Structures are given as C-alpha cells and as structure tokens.
C-alpha cells in the first residue's frame, strides 16, 4: 500500500485509475475522500501534523489492513497545511478481489486514521481561529474493529 503525507493537492482520478491499471485481478475498488466543509461560515482549515510519527502511524495502520483483508493495492494520502472549503483533505482507496474486503479495509483505515494519525485541525471563520475538539464518536468508530 502506498502512504503519502503532503501539502499538495492530489488527483483522485489518477490515484483510483492507478489501482487497477494493467491488471485483471481487481474486482472491487472502494474509496473515501474527505473534504473541507464550509460549516457555520468556516473559511479555512489548517492541518498541523507530527512529521515522522504521521508516516509511521499511517504505515502501521496500512500494514494492519493488509494483514486483515486481501488488499491488492491501496493508497492513503493525507494533506497538511491550509485548505479551503471544497478542498480534499484525505483519500483512502483500496483495491481487492471482492467488495466486502474493499469496503471494510477502506472504512477501517479511515476510522483508525481519525484516531491514530497525529493531525490537528484549526478552523478559521467568523470566530477567528480555533482548534477542533476530538469527537468521542471517532474513538468509538475505531473501537469496533
């Protein structure tokens, strides 16, 4: 699985196409894209992260998913830096022979990434700038695996 942490935008179309290019054993591709929402007048989101630990945690989560499901190819990209509404923050895409495995591995990666990848969001808007508080539901989502 390929794991990337970068400030640059990514090309979802190219990432998805790469997962099944030149092979005929992929039966299912599940993908998830997280985007910046303009909730309550939010104008920008800045993602801070812990360089080194982020890559390490993402690689560990990816290895867990690969041990648990038949993953033929996968891509995890998480951006950092300042993003505006409509920008994509994160992409998780999994190619597998079968649909259930693709869905589950993709969902698992997102849930774990939400609780194990050291990113922090600060929101800009009418309130100025504020740090986003962690949601208990994210911990619960990760616990179900």
């Amino acid at each position, binding site marked *: 699985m390929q794991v990337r942490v970068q400030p640059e935008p990514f090309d979802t179309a190219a990432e998805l196409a790469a997962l099944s290019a030149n092979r005929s054993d992929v039966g299912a591709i599940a993908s998830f894209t997280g985007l910046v929402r303009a909730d309550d007048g939010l104008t920008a989101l800045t*993602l801070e992260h812990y360089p080194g*630990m982020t890559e390490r945690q993402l690689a560990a989560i990816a290895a867990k998913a690969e041990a648990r499901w038949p993953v033929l190819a996968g891509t995890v990209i*998480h951006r950092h830096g300042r993003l505006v509404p409509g920008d994509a*923050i994160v992409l998780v895409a999994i190619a597998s022979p079968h649909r259930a495995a693709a869905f589950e591995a993709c969902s698992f990666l997102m849930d774990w990434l939400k609780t*194990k990848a*050291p*990113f922090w*969001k600060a929101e800009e808007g009418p309130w100025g700038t504020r*740090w986003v*508080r962690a949601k208990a539901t994210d911990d619960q989502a990760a616990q179900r695996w």
Partner: protein
Amino acid sequence: MMLYFAWVREAIGADQETLTPPPTVETVADLLDWLAARSPNHAAALADRTAIRVALDQDFAQADTPIGTAQEVAIFPPITGG
C-alpha cells in the same frame, strides 16, 4: 527532546524544548507533573490531563508508561485529522 503540537504548542509558547528531567521522573504522568511546574504557561497547557496525549519516540503512551530511554517525547491534544 520535548515536542509540542497544536494548542499545547500555543499554550506553552514553543514547539520544542530540550530538557533533562531528574531521575525521579519515571512515567509519563511524572513527566507531565514535572513539566507543569516549570512555568504558568506549562501549567495552563497541561491543566486538563484528559485533553493531553503523549507519544514516546513516536508511539502512543499512557499515563503509567515508563519514559525509559525515549529520546523524543511529544505532547499534544487528542487527534482531529481525517
């Protein structure tokens, strides 16, 4: 080496510090107590321990995890990525 992120970094007013805790600091909880006593900013940043997470050499640690020989200790709020 201590690393601080997000509002912990802002409250302490530094993104890193090079500190050598005394030998009595054995666990993560000990370290946080010792750090909180360093300045009003440190105390404020670490006041609510339920909102503090710690990583030792880039692995998550708990309050009772021994510091051991960790070279890089990071202190930060609960994660909000994804």
